[in-house]
C-alpha cells in the first residue's frame, strides 16, 4: 500500500500534472482523484447526498411511524437497522436523519464562515481601534472551551435546533474572523492592492475583488476540514438534549436514545456509524482539498 502511495507521489512529482495549471479547478479535481482516500471520501459524500435526495425512496417506512407491536426489534429483513423504543424503523430514521444532521453541520460552518469573514475582513482592512476591539472579542470567545460555551448558549436559548445552530455559529465565527483578518492584513500590503487603491477602487470593490479571492482558498480548506467537526458538534448538542426536539430523527439525538438502551446495540450503532462515515468522508475530502490547493504539494514534492 505504501509502495503504491509512494508510486503515486512519484508520478505526481514526475509531471503528470502541468506545473502551471491554467485550468486550476480541473487540475485540482484530477489531483484529488489520484488519491484513493480522497476518492473514498468523495464517494461516501456523494452516496450521502443521494441518500438525502432519495430518502423517501430508500426509507422502508416513514421515520415517525410508530409501531408498538415491534418495539426494540433487532435488525431483520423487515427492519434492517432494527426498531427503537417506539417501534420506529431505524433505517428510515437514519436515512431521514441525513436530511437534518448533514445540512445542520454544513450550515453551521457556512454561517460561521460568512460571519467570520465579514468581521475579519472589516477588522483587517480598517485596522486601528476596530481591529483591536474585534480581536479582543474573538479572544474572549476563543478563551472558552468551544463545546462548553456552545452548551451554555444553547441552554440559555432553550432546546431547539435553530438555537443549537446559533450557539455553534456563535462559538465558531472567531476562527474564521482571525484567519480572514490575517489574510487581509497581508494582502492589503501587496502592490496590486496598492495599485487598485491608486486606481480609485472603493472599499467594497477592494474587499470583494482583490482581497476575498486571495483568501478564498485557505478559507475553503479550513471549511471542508471543519464541516466534520460542525456535524459532530451539532450532534453532540442534540445528544445532550439541546438540539432537535423529539420526534425529529437527528443522529446525535438518536445516539443519545440508544445510549439509554445498552441491551439494544443497534439503536446507537447505526446513527453512530452514520456520523462517523460522514465526518470521516468530509475529513478525507478536506485533506485532499488542502493538498490540492497547497502549491508546495502540487508543485514539486
Amino acid at each position, binding site marked *: 500500500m505504501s509502495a503504491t502511495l509512494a508510486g503515486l507521489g512519484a508520478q505526481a512529482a514526475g509531471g503528470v500534472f502541468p506545473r502551471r495549471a491554467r485550468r486550476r479547478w480541473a487540475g485540482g479535481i484530477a489531483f484529488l482523484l489520484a488519491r484513493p482516500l480522497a476518492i473514498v471520501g468523495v464517494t461516501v459524500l456523494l452516496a450521502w447526498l443521494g441518500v438525502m435526495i432519495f430518502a423517501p425512496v430508500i426509507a422502508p417506512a416513514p421515520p415517525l411511524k410508530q409501531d*408498538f407491536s415491534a418495539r426494540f426489534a433487532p435488525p431483520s429483513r423487515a427492519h434492517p437497522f432494527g426498531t427503537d423504543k*417506539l417501534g420506529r424503523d431505524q433505517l428510515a430514521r437514519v436515512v431521514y436523519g441525513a436530511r437534518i444532521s448533514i445540512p445542520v453541520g454544513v450550515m453551521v460552518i457556512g454561517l460561521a464562515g460568512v460571519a467570520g469573514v465579514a468581521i475579519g475582513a472589516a477588522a483587517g482592512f480598517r485596522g486601528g481601534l476596530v481591529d483591536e476591539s474585534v480581536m479582543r472579542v474573538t479572544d474572549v470567545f476563543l478563551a472558552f472551551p468551544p463545546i462548553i460555551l456552545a452548551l451554555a448558549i444553547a441552554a440559555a436559548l432553550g432546546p431547539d435546533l435553530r438555537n443549537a445552530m446559533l450557539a455553534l455559529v456563535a462559538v465558531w465565527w472567531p476562527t474564521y474572523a482571525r484567519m480572514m483578518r490575517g489574510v487581509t492584513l497581508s494582502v492589503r500590503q501587496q502592490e496590486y492592492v496598492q495599485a487598485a487603491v491608486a486606481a480609485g477602487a472603493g472599499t467594497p470593490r477592494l474587499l470583494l475583488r482583490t482581497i476575498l479571492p486571495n483568501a478564498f482558498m485557505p478559507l475553503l480548506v479550513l471549511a471542508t476540514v471543519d464541516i466534520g467537526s460542525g456535524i459532530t458538534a451539532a450532534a453532540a448538542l442534540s445528544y445532550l438534549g439541546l438540539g432537535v426536539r423529539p*420526534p425529529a430523527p437527528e443522529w446525535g439525538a438518536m445516539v443519545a436514545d440508544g445510549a439509554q438502551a445498552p*441491551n439494544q446495540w443497534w439503536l446507537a450503532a447505526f446513527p453512530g456509524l452514520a456520523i462517523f462515515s460522514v465526518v470521516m468522508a468530509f475529513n478525507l475530502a478536506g485533506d485532499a482539498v488542502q493538498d490540492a490547493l497547497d502549491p508546495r504539494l502540487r508543485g514539486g514534492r
Partner: protein
Amino acid sequence: MSERISSAGAVVRARLSRRQALKAAGAVAVVAAVGSASRPGAVAQQAKPLIVGRNIDDVITLDPGIAGEETYTVVLRGCYDTLVTTPADSTKQIVPMLAESWQVSDDLTTYTFKLKPDVKFSSGNPLSADDVKFSYDRLKNLVSQASYLMDPVKAVDIVDPATVRITLNNPDATFLGSLCSANFGVLDRKVVTEHGGTDQLGAGKGTDGATDWLTQNSAGSGPYVLTGYTPKDRITMSRNASSWRGVGIDDVILQSAPDSSALQQMLEKGDAEIAWGLLTEQLDALKQNPDIETASTPMLGFMAVGFTCDPTRNKAIADPKVQLALKYAVDYDGIRSLRDGALTPPSIIPVGLNGALEPGKDGYTHDPDKAKALLAEAGYANGFKTMMSASSTEIIGGVQDSLLAEKLQSDFGEVGVDVELDVQDEEIFRPKYRAGEIETVVGAYYVGTPTPYDLIDAWGPTGAVCVNRFKWHAPNHPATALFAEARKTADPAKQAALLQQAQRDLLKDCPFQVLIQPVFSYPYRNDLTGVVANPTWNFDVSTIKRKG
C-alpha cells in the same frame, strides 16, 4: 401553657426509674441479638453499606411536612415512624406502628391512639403525644403540597403523654389509611424546634426554618437517621441506635445514577445492590441475569395526560370538547403493551384499591374518527397546536413519562393535533408543573397511603392537582358529593359502589385521562434478602439483609 410543660416534665421524671429498668432489659436483649449474629463474616458483611441505585433528581426536600414525588418514600420510611401502617406485602390491612392500639368513635370523627411506650427519637428524647401533635400541626401549617393530608382534621389533642386524640371535621372511614402516609411521620419536637421549626400558624410563610436542616438530617424514631443529602450525588442514612425497629444493614446509600442505563450497569457490576427506576426493557433484560432477582408489586397509581382549563394558556386545549376528543385519540392498548402486567384503569382509583372501576368496562377506547368528529364540532377540524410537557428523567413502574409523551404526540397527531414536546429535566419541569404553567402534560401519580382518598384529594374535582395544575375547580361536580358520601361510609361494599359512580361522573368531563397503571419492580443482587416491594413506600431498607 407553662403549667402543661411543667406537669409533663413531672410525668417524665416520675417515669424515669422505670424507663431505666427497661433500658437495661433492652440492652440485655441487644447483646443477645448481637451475639447470635456475630460470626466474623456476618459482621464484615453488615458493615458494608447497602447501595441503592436511584436517580435522586426528584428530591426537593426530605422534610416530612413537605416531601413529595418518589425518592423521599424510602428515606422517610427509614427515618420516621407513623402511628399506624400496613403490612409490607398488603395494602388492605392497618397494623400498629407507633400506636399500640386505637379507638374509633361510632360517628367516625374521633380517633384516639394509645402510643407504644418507651419509643425514643434518634436524639434520645422520648416520643410523646406532644411530638405527634407538633408534627401534625406543622404538616398542616406549613401549607405545603402535603398539607392536604391534614384537611380532614379539625384538631389534634394531647389526652395524656401517651394518648393522642384526633378529631375530624367530617366522618371519615378511610382516615387510618391516610395516617399511614410518610408525611405523617412523627418528628422530634425538641430537635426540630431547635433548628427553627414551628407548628404554629404561618409556619409555611417563612416562620418555620427547619426544612433545610431536615433535608440533610432527620429527627425521627425510625431505624435510620439521615446523615446527608448531596443533590445529584447521594443520600446517606445510618442506623439509629435508639430505634425500637431493627435494621439488617447499618448504613444505606442512595447513590444517584444519571440515567437508567447507567443504573442498570451499576446493578450488573455490583456497584449498586438494588436498582430503583429502571425501564421496562431493562427489567426484561435483567431477567436473563442469574445474579439478579426482582421484587415487584402492582403500582397503586397511574400515569395520566392532563390538560389546562386556562384558555389564556391554550384556548383549544381548555375547551372541554377538545379534551373529550383527545381522550378518544389515545391508543390505550398500545400504551398498556409498554409494560408486562400493566393495566388500564378507567379512572383515578387504581386496581387493587377499594372502589376501582373495572378495566375495559368503563372509560374510553381508541376511536380516532370520533375524536376527529368532536374536534370538528369544537371548531378545530384543521387541528391546532399544543405544547406537551413531561419530565425527561421520571420513570414510574418501568414506564418513562417522556416515552408516553412521544406516544401521545403520535396519537394526537393522527387526529390532526400538532403536539410540540417540551421534555425537560426535573428541575425545570417540576416547578412549571407545580405552578400550572402547562398546556398539556404527562405525569405519574401514586398513592402515599393505602386509601383511594390520597388520589381523590389530589385528582378529584376540588383536588390540588386539578385546581393548581389544570386550573379546574368544580365543587358542584356530581362526583364531589359522591366522593364525600363514600368517605363516611364504613361498609366497604357500599363505599365501593359510591366511589365507582363518582368516577363514572368524573370521567365525563375531568381535564385529564388516566393512561396506564404500571408495575413497580426493584431488581436486586441475589445476595440480599428481605427486599419486599410495597406500592406506597417502595421498599423498607431496614428489612433488607445480606445472606450468609
